[in-house]
């Protein structure tokens, strides 16, 4: 229970169904850390005391047992540190997926089993069914396509899914709010949270800089040059981790035509910029691929592939490679800003086939 409307509604929904439930909030980050980022206010950030207060209040209203459990060190180890090293390596990570794969549906699932819980229910917008013919758990997009969160769930194994419930997958956000109102939950009107919970105001580069200051390490000197695709120096930049592929703003270069980040090269401390067309790619390789609704592919398969959360899944063909953990994706039409570190998630209509990390 994050203290938000979705997980609160899940608790209310399950209780109404007569399930025996226990509410839990993961303490993921110590709000006393990096105080310069919060500007004195820790609102809108995960695990703020306000959110814990809300979750506890909801649990009290529903009269269910409720606990806050400490996952700070696991979150730092499995999410924050990889998040930072990915940026410093010139990639653009998806921390929510790291959290799902290695904290929420891993160690937290184990803790839930430890206290005697059979399943963990979350407020994710995704549908989950067991197909008795194939013997697999199948995942489908949430019916509310604007809230669908399957992009962040592609890494879940069949074993993890067997212990998971997504009660909101069949509901639209508006229906969830109606449900919360109907149940009299105090968070019914609470605004939706932002995307990366531990990064206030979306300033991930500021977070990385502050984290390094806290650790007493000077951030790897990543200050360097901005160059165009032919290697011509266009300007200077304050660190490659400030840039992500496809980014247009914040380059500080005035030219006649709009310029975009095409790639970052941390080793050379270079940011490469170019025209919009330079961002188009026909294919990608996904690594550490996890298959959900279908077994690992052995032959080419048609699919729609999403290369970032806000991307409209594009028609493509999936090709197996000699390495079973890697899948080649060839798009029917070139796609803009295929970004290393992001996930490529494979769909067949609503069905989530699987996904992997863009190399």
């Amino acid at each position, binding site marked *: 229970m994050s203290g938000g409307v979705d997980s609160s509604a899940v608790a209310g929904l399950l209780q109404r169904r007569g399930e025996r439930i226990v509410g839990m909030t993961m*303490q993921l980050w110590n709000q006393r850390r990096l105080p310069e980022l919060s500007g004195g206010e820790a609102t809108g950030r995960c*695990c703020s*005391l306000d959110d814990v207060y809300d979750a506890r209040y909801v649990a009290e209203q529903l009269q269910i047992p409720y606990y806050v459990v*400490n996952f700070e060190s696991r979150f730092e180890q499995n999410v924050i540190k990889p998040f930072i090293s990915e940026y410093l390596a010139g990639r653009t990570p998806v921390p929510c997926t790291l959290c799902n794969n290695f904290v929420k549906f891993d160690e937290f699932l*184990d803790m839930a089993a*430890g206290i005697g819980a059979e399943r963990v229910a979350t407020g994710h917008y995704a549908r989950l069914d067991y197909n008795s013919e194939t013997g697999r758990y199948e995942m489908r997009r949430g019916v509310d396509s604007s809230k669908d969160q399957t992009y962040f769930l592609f890494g879940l194994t069949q074993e993890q899914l067997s212990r998971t419930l997504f009660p909101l997958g069949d509901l639209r956000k508006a229906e969830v709010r109606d449900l919360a109102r109907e149940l009299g939950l105090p968070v019914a009107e609470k605004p939706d949270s932002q995307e990366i919970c531990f990064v206030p105001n979306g300033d991930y580069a500021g977070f990385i800089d502050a984290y390094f200051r806290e650790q007493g390490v000077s951030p790897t000197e990543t200050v360097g040059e901005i160059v165009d695709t032919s290697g011509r120096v266009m300007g200077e930049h304050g660190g490659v981790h400030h840039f992500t592929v496809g980014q247009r703003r914040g380059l500080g270069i005035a030219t006649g035509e709009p310029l975009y980040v095409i790639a970052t090269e941390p080793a050379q401390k270079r940011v490469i910029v170019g025209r919009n067309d330079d961002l188009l790619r026909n294919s990608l390789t996904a690594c550490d691929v996890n298959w959900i609704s279908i077994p690992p592919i052995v032959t080419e398969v048609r699919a729609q592939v999403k290369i970032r959360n806000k991307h409209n899944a594009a028609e493509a063909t999936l090709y197996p490679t000699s390495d079973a953990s890697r899948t080649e994706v060839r798009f029917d039409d070139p796609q803009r800003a295929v970004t290393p570190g992001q996930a490529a998630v494979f769909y067949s209509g609503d069905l989530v086939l699987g996904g992997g990390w863009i190399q």
Partner: protein
Amino acid sequence: MHPCYFDHNATTPVCPEVMDALIPALTDVFGNASSVHHFGQLAKQKLEAARRQVAEMLRCHPSEVAFVSGGTEANNLAILGSLRRGGAAGKHIVTTAIEHPAVLNPCGQLEREGASVTYVRVGASGIVDPDDVRRALRPETVLITVMHANNELGTIQPLKAIGEIAREAEVMFHSDGVQAAGKMPINVNEFGVDAYSVSGHKFYAPKGVGVLYVRKGTDLEPLMLGGHHERDRRPGTENVPGAIALGRAATLARECLEQDSVNPGALRDRLENGIRHRVDGARVNCAGSERLPNTSNIYFEGVQGEPLLIALDLKGFAVSSGSACSSGAVEPSHVLTAIGLSREDARCCLRFSLGRSNDAAQVDALIDAVAQSVAHLQRLAPTTCLTH
């Protein structure tokens, strides 16, 4: 079965005898103890009677008892109050690594104000070596502060030996007695302490009242500014009902401890023997050390304390693990790492603290529940604690 409470080191319920003293104190004795009229005089009389009761428990003169809001304030007053007279800069404090945050954080604040602090280590016994305290002394040492009994382990510190060292060196000696008061006999003169902190709610008085014993002649700068209450040591209208309740609880505790027929550690031993017998890989921390008769801190091999605590709570048994941070999540204990446990092993421990409400049947039921829950957790993740 009713929920069973095994967390008496966190707090205790107000007992019936204290309630009987408290209720009329809230209604009939409402006067301001500083007022001249007879309402005030009655309150003053009750306040002083309570002070005498506390003095009897501590074996001191009533004038040496200052009522405060609780253990945290008592510790802050003793530490900040003794260092800040004339400024803290350049002064030195000796304390231990296993103190409560209400001691460690005032010491940390004084470090920021220019004082220096030595945190004496304790070793696996959970008991500080007085010779280590002696060796930590410097010419500029003005305060030794060592807790009487540790809240997590129950280990009892050698106050008498440290008191002699302090007297010899002519250094003020404060002890945080919050966990000891009510659980073992106290004699401030025998211990040689100049200040001693007590909290009412740890022994069946309500929250919000405590005592700082201050030896006659000990100069403390008050933490707050106001009237001349409590001999200029603590301004603010006296919490007369709280003091009355604390006084009554002090008398009860003293009488209880004087009954020779009762073995106060019998239930604790029953619990430890039962768990050792039934649970593979269970180990009592500081088992061989002199400990409070009610406190047991147990390491469970391969089992995280956090899910174990929750599983036990869902079965109706309230125990504790580490200390709670502001959200309510549990933080790994600095005390357990101080006695040599790794951070990982420190997460595999639970504290059981017994009290008047517990009986043998409850203890036996607790042993059953612990054995079941530990077996379940060990089955799920036999190496959870070992692989982190």
